[in-house]
């Protein structure tokens, strides 16, 4: 019957979709969990001159990172997300407090340029390969693999014996 067959047809994709939704749900459920102090502090640069992030500042009594960590803890307790907390610090101290460039406007260049350059390099490499391979005669009817292996093995055996 047509309805039955159509339901069978959609069973596998449906299961896949459910699986994907479950995965996505699990991901978002995880993302919705409260951020840790370290995960937020990793996104902020300590301003004490240590050159490290607030999470890694090497001054245990640091006058900047210690109070900032306390503030982060309070903001997490208030239910604010990682992004909201980082944004609050950006507003207060300016962009220099962020430990990585934002992903918008001019700063987007910081993120895409390395991958862009590698992609262009890869494309050039493929073009060069294509040019090299076109017009390249394939190896003279390359001995079929078994014969080739046998010949190679004989040569290798000879060389190893000579070495020894």
């Amino acid at each position, binding site marked *: 019957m047509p309805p039955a067959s159509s339901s069978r047809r959609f069973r596998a994709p449906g299961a896949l979709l459910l699986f994907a939704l479950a995965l996505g749900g699990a991901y978002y459920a995880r993302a919705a969990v409260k951020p840790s102090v370290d995960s937020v502090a990793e996104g902020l640069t300590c301003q004490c001159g240590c050159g490290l992030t607030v999470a*890694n500042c090497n001054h245990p009594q640091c006058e900047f990172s210690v109070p900032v960590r306390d503030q982060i803890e309070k903001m997490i307790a208030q239910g604010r997300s990682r992004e909201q907390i980082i944004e609050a610090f950006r507003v207060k101290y300016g962009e220099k407090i962020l430990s990585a460039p934002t992903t918008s406007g001019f700063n987007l260049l910081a993120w895409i340029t390395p991958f862009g350059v590698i992609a262009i390099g890869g494309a050039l490499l493929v073009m060069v390969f294509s040019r090299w391979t076109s017009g390249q005669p394939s190896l003279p009817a390359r001995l079929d693999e078994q014969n080739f292996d046998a010949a190679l093995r004989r040569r290798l055996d000879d060389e190893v014996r000579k070495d020894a």
Partner: protein
Amino acid sequence: MPLIGPFALAFALLLAFYSVLANVIGARRRLSALVVSGRHALWAMSAMITVAIVVLWSSLLHSDFTLHYVASYSSLTLPPIYKFTALWGGQQGSLLLWTWLLSVFSSIVAWQNRRRNPEITPYALAVLAVLAIFFLGMLNFVTRPFDLVARVPGDGQDLNPLLQNYWMAIHPPSLYTGYVSASVPFAFGAAALITGKLDDSWIRTTRRWAIFSWFFLTLGNLFGARWAYEVLGWGGYWAWDPVENAAFMPWLVMTAYLHSVMIQERKDMLKVWNLALIGLAFELTLFGTFLTRSGVISSVHSFTQSGLGPYFLTFLAIVASAYTALLVGRLKMLRTPAEFESYLSREAAFLFNNLVLVGIAFAVFWGTIFPVISEAVRGVKITVGPPFFDKVNGPLALLLIFLMGVGPLIAWRRSTARNLLRTFAAPLLIGLGTGLCVALAGLHQWYVLTAFSLAAFVLGTILAEFRHGVTARRHLVGESSARAMVNLVAKNNRRYGGYVIHLGVVLAFVGIVASSFFRLEVKRSVRQGDSIDVGPYELVYLGTRSSMDPHVESLQARIEVMRDGRPLAVMLPAKLFYARQQQPATVVALRSTPLHDLYVVFAGVDEATGQATFQVFLTPLVFWLWAGGLIMALGTVIVMWPNVRERAAIAAVVRAGDEAALEAQMAPGGE
């Protein structure tokens, strides 16, 4: 005695000028006597710079505060070992060390090639002498190590406390050795371009120098990371600081170069690429020095900021432009028929490996200079820190590790699917099995799963290679497994040394991933007798002990480490205070095992409450980062070890190629 120093440096500068002129004119006009005198001038220059560095060392050891440098970077109470290392604790001394290393390496090259490569050696020596002119110019006119003070102080200002550490005794010289020795292959590459002698003789002549440079760059980076780990007291070892990046970039490019020259040696391809890579590697060493000196980008490692930046930038621009012009001018001569058959070949794997290595170097460069670009374009100062570099380089590192497994095992020219399956089946199973075990162990981060699986895959390929080689020798020659292993490595040291290096890289990679993802941190203030629980350990605070000498004041905490109720060790983290510099420093207590490092930082005691504050890190597998680095160094020694067969082959090639040139060169005068 310090007065000898400036004269020695001035004389060295004159000798460097003479060496350039004598080598170039001698080579152009085929006046071999002039070429010989140019070489002798280089040796004399080296002797003069040696005199200068000995004078500075002597002044430091004798606390001769008439010298501004000695008064600025040492003190009467500074321990002798740090008086010795204070040579590279400041701007002028470290530049003098750089110049001295350059002169020593130039002299060795001149000696090695006194009867070899007569066409290109004079030009290579001239290039090295030009580099020496720049540094000697700095030391003579811009940043003089022998400047006198107006009024001699009773004591010096002391060395920065962060530099009073044994890793600082070996980290900068290792890094400088790596940086400076890169100038030898660069000089020969430039000489090959100048003379048009563009076969691979310049590569063969400088192969060991390139590996030597890579070896010291590896050690320099490793020791620097270890210094950061032990001294900075934050539990980490790499913060993507601009100065760290500056040392990492030449290492990456030099790694790419060492792989791609194999293709040129074997197939006479990639001549332009190899010349470009060695030029880039050397230019990055200059860029690194520029970053360290200029203060244009803030860094925790810039102990010697000065106004040298513009000089270095100008010199870098001149070197890069001249080299690029030479390269472009020779493009036609560098074209060779390319022999390339398939993407499934070692050539392709090596080229993609080059792309990734240079890509990572570019990403690091871009991230390092982006704050400057941002400030110039938007007028906004931003920070590009670890999250950026981790996110950009993390996936590229995975790709690199994958290619590291594929490259050495895939056949040259072309592989078939059947070949690939046979070669990679076992390593792939090992990789997948490891991934499964890691997932079952509860580690579900995709990066960790992929990284550990790939690491196991590469280990599988390395083991497979050793197993094949040993099995072949056992069957064919009848050797025991141990003897077969030794002979296998001894007779094919380049190949198997390379595998040992790869093994080291994989272990270091595992250490980096595990320590980055699973570090545990606890910060607690406790009273005497209280304990702190960290992972499986219980740390009991037993009290403090203070000591004082004229140089440094110390407050040391005693911590008993217990596991399952049994005492394991006593750890002694301390807080130091340096009297002359009025600066505190940290002594980290470290208990390292192959499974994890227990790392304790003592922040001090609150006098009001009597509570001591500790920061404790439990970092898994970080041991393997250091072990992997040392294995990489061991592999490099194996690769560099003289191989009688290889030497004979090179000598034959050099003899055949150079006999005619040597005769022509020697005809007018002769040595």
